[in-house]
């Protein structure tokens, strides 16, 4: 994941079922970005972002712009568009994770291409968290989070949730804009 986000100008889709570790992955990425004093924007379609959890993960909340869309998907998409075009943010997260998959699937594909072009222009990393893959060819890369196991500790009367172990599968490997342009011209680029 870090390798992908270091490339910048990347639109990365992160999908997975509930409790598969997507949020933990995003918070870890935001913690690293804010530790570098970079500003990040979180467009939260369902007001699910938990600042307490983010703070515990090491995110510097002063470097986060949080936009609460209160369940309005179209507002979230518009806000993401404005933020990407404004620039200045190293990471822009569009969180539509808690929206029903059938509604997510109905989002026109043109949105994702628009976000991709805006991302390439602004130099940011655009992270889309979604319950099901939906961006198709619009994203530069796609990963899927799969839960492996849940660890509980303590006796049955005093159990504690310790950790949720998850694995990320790369569904679509990252291809930079240069590589795509070269591919369209029938040129093969060697990468180190």
């Amino acid at each position, binding site marked *: 994941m870090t390798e992908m986000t270091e490339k910048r100008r990347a639109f990365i889709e992160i999908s997975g079922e509930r409790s598969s570790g997507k949020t*933990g992955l995003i918070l870890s990425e935001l913690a690293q970005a804010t530790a570098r004093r970079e500003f990040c924007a979180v467009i939260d379609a369902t007001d*699910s972002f*938990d600042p307490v959890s983010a703070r515990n993960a090491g995110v510097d909340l002063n470097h986060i*712009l949080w936009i609460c869309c*209160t369940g309005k998907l179209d507002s979230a998409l518009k806000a993401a568009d*404005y933020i990407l075009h404004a620039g200045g943010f190293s990471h822009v997260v569009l969180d539509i994770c*808690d929206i029903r998959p059938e509604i997510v699937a109905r989002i026109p594909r043109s949105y994702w291409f628009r976000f991709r072009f805006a991302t390439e222009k602004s130099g940011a990393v655009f992270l889309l968290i979604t319950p099901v893959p939906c961006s198709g060819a619009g994203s530069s890369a796609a990963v899927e989070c799969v839960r492996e196991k849940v660890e509980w500790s303590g006796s049955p009367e005093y159990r504690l*949730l310790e950790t949720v172990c998850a694995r990320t599968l790369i569904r679509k490997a990252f291809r930079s804009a240069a590589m795509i342009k070269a591919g369209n011209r029938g040129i093969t680029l060697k990468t180190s």
Partner: protein
Amino acid sequence: MFCCIYAIDKDNSDYQALVAFAARFSPLVEETGGDSVVLDLEGTELLNGPFTDFPGRITRLAERERMAVRAAVAANPDAAFHAAHGLPESVFIEPGKEAEYLGDLPVENISHLLADITVERLGEIVGTLNSWGISTFGPLAALPTTGISERLGPEGVRIQQLAKGKTRRSIIVKSTGAVFSLSERLEHPVSSRETLLLVLAGYLEKLTAYLKAHHLAAAGFELETRLADGSTYARKIQFPSPIKEYRTLKKILELEIEGFSPSSPVTWVRLELNPGKTRMIQSGLFTPDTPEPEKTELVLARIGKIVGQGKIGSPEVENSHRPDPVRIKRFDTGSVFRKNRHMDQSPSARKQPATRKLRPPLAVMVWMGENRPIRVQTTDSGIRKGVSGKVLVSAGPWLTSGEWWSKGKWEREEWDLQLSDGTICRVYHDLQSNRWYLDAIYD
């Protein structure tokens, strides 16, 4: 460098005379607290002489005009303010030595205006500090900021920064010579918002040109209108960073009055721009990109119109044990550079799974067996997917309650559950309403 001039005998002194006196030494004068003014002295050394001699010179000149004042010069306006108010004589504070000069001042001297809190709240905090044996700025500045934040909240941290003399802010300038305001009784009353915008755009163009001629920018604006039926419509907005571009200001003004539909024609209108110093930033080669303040302000105004006010900004965790102690504060890229990583942001020593909150919590049905949840079900709630399944593993109950003395009292029994549909969640039983709710999902 900044200079604070404090009128010692404020009951018998003419405040406007003090402001006019201060304006002779700098065009950038802030009226602070009704008994003092703060001047921005940057670039005035050739005019006023060395800063080290300035406090004494100001005091002597004021005496000639029968004003009893004390002056203090410091690297930031708040340190100059406290020094002028608290120290017995006029003083020049060398940059970096603010804590030394301010160390013996009593904590009661801290200005509630500069700390941006009410007098009552300041009194509470001072009372708490006194009970800890902290009575002066020095010991307060020496306390660990994390502890201050945990016990006294963000207000305590602001007060500590004032005690250290390390705050940085722009002064809010009210120039005595120039007034950046235009008002007019409209010859032909205006019935529509679009026509009103045209009128205001004309004023705005003149005022921004006026500001530019004074090498100033707009730190905020105030709009006031009177309607034919006697009612008024007013808007006031302060920007985190002064803006000087006419187009940006016009767009913000448009967005601000978007919801205004005059019930009767507008007969009188006033637009005033609050002047502020133009911000100059030197970007570094190796510092990360930041959002441009002017562009950000415009984008935030646009998004604010879509999602609603109060729904956009930086998250802040309040010092409270209540569930979801979160609020949204103004997003300001400028202030972040002036402080170190926030001391109360230290990651938790025990790694916890990340959570996603449900706001508001979703009502669920819970079946119990042997005093433990065995099944949870909720329906899809609008756009959000519901949960449904048998409980495979449960942890709890964890009892939590608080604020029993106020209307915000809560009392709940929390459970962490792993369900057969794959969800790992936190549900709680509200003991006051006897209902179950889905509070968060671990992800």
